[in-house]
């Protein structure tokens, strides 16, 4: 047997699933986006779905919400993840296992389970958050009927769940930095804070870029949180994301063509933002 044949035999199961459930759907989705899928049979009408994108206020609202979440949430979470990773990596840390567990545990909690808990915690009438605000003398918040508050619940929830994940990635980057760099800096009386900004951050750059790219792609695809925590993007579409919008167009209205056009737009945004990040984060020599 030739090498090529052996290689493809090893690749066969993987490529079969890949071709059937990835390649074909990707092509099929693009084709669908060019058709009016609400007639039987479908009618070729490329301007219909793609043209609608520019003028559909519901789509533009979902796009805006997705971008707001991304622009606010990703920087907060990645900065927090960097700080956590540095602190959790400190040789001075006691009860290391327990403290790591606290931040890493949310990563394994099911999305549905955590959505349920957050919905209960932020309940305006009997949720723990409002009870605590009340006890410490702060005004209670109508978390799910105020648009800004609902948005901040989503941001807090996503940050809670994913910060540990990003901290793990950054921690692995930290552990690959040789210790003698810090020892030399300490001998030269460089302060810990300056060491962080002039040694740690620059050396972590590739890992941080990786973590930002993953977080951006993740935030573009938010679905479970607005679906379950804020009850289908409530109040009144204030937390509707692109993921939820595609779900609705695809599986509530069954407008497959339009949903596919939105999905392709989402994919293009993801690719452009990922490339932009890799370009901005490239090694400058």
């Amino acid at each position, binding site marked *: 047997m030739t090498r090529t044949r052996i290689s493809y035999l090893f690749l066969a199961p993987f490529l079969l699933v890949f071709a059937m459930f990835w390649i074909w759907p990707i092509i099929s989705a693009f084709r669908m986006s060019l058709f009016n899928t609400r007639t039987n049979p479908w009618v070729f009408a490329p301007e219909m779905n793609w043209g609608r994108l520019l003028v559909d206020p519901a789509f533009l609202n979902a796009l805006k919400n997705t971008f707001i979440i991304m622009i606010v949430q990703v920087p907060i979470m990645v900065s927090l993840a960097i700080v956590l990773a540095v602190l959790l990596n400190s040789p001075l840390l006691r009860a290391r296992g327990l*403290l790591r567990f606290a931040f890493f545990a949310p990563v394994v909690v099911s999305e549905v389970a955590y959505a349920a808990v957050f919905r209960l915690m932020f309940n305006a009438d009997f949720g723990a958050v409002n009870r605590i605000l009340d006890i410490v003398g702060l005004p209670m918040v109508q978390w799910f009927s105020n648009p800004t508050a609902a948005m901040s619940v989503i941001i807090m929830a996503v940050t809670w769940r994913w910060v540990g994940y990003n901290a793990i990635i950054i921690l692995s980057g930290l552990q690959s930095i040789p210790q003698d760099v810090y020892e030399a800096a300490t001998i030269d009386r460089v302060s810990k804070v300056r060491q962080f900004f002039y040694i740690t951050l620059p050396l972590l750059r590739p890992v941080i870029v990786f973590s930002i790219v993953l977080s951006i792609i993740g935030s573009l695809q938010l679905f479970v949180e607005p679906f*379950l925590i804020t009850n289908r993007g409530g109040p009144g579409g204030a937390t509707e994301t692109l993921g939820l919008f595609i779900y609705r167009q695809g599986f509530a209205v069954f407008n497959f063509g339009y949903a596919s056009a939105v999905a392709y737009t989402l994919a293009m945004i993801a690719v452009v933002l990922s490339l932009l990040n890799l370009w901005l984060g490239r090694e400058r020599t």
Partner: protein
Amino acid sequence: MSSLAARRRRDVIVLHAVLVPLALIWLFPIWLMFVFASLPEQALYQPGVRLWPGTEFFANFNALEESTGFTRTIFNSVVVAVIYTALSILMTSMAGWALARYRFHGKAVVAGVVLGTMTLPYFVLVIPQFIMVARDFGLSNTWFALIVPPLFNALGVLFMRQTFIAMPNDLFDAARVEGVTEWQIFTRVAIPMARPTMAALAIILFLFSWNNYLWPLLIVTQPDMMTAPVALGSLIGLTRISWGGIMVGAVLLTLPMLVLFVILQRHFVSGIAAGAIK
């Protein structure tokens, strides 16, 4: 010297003054899940914040079981996750092996396309996948539909490929001289050496399948084929079940993974650090 010791003590205090309160905030939602899973419904409406578990866990469990048949859905989730993990591990190691160890026509194309899918949002695929599996094949509510379409996993392949690349050539060449087939080299020589990586990958794959929500939500319509996240999700926002029952479901979904995480933390962490799956 004493000033150095004092500075060190100050650093320790500052470090923990930041981390410990933050850690408590992060543990709070999980703790609350356990607390409300074991409290009677009236406890919610009483003033104050209940921070200690009660004794009503089994009453809440019975309420949950009555409204959804939750035990059955947990069973479904276990079956799906176990088969999914086994198949996915086999597929990704075979593909990773080919990409790591052989030179063949089209290798660059295969590797490039696989890598290229990593930034692709799942929402691009989900509609045609659904149309194909549910409408064209008529496979809604089947094990096949739950397990096979999500099998593709680019990062798993890259993860396995890295592992096989790092192995020394001589070992495989020695086996080849003895006339061992390529398949036997893969299963008898390479796989045993790759065990730690495979363990890490298996955990991440199992977690992904266990927590997967959108695809099973779409492809399952019969209650007896639902996975646990779908069944639990269908209760959120309804008034026919108590919060206690929902929290029991959340605990049953979360606790096994937390226990696994505690036992296998090292594998989890190396799996995530390698970016095995999001």
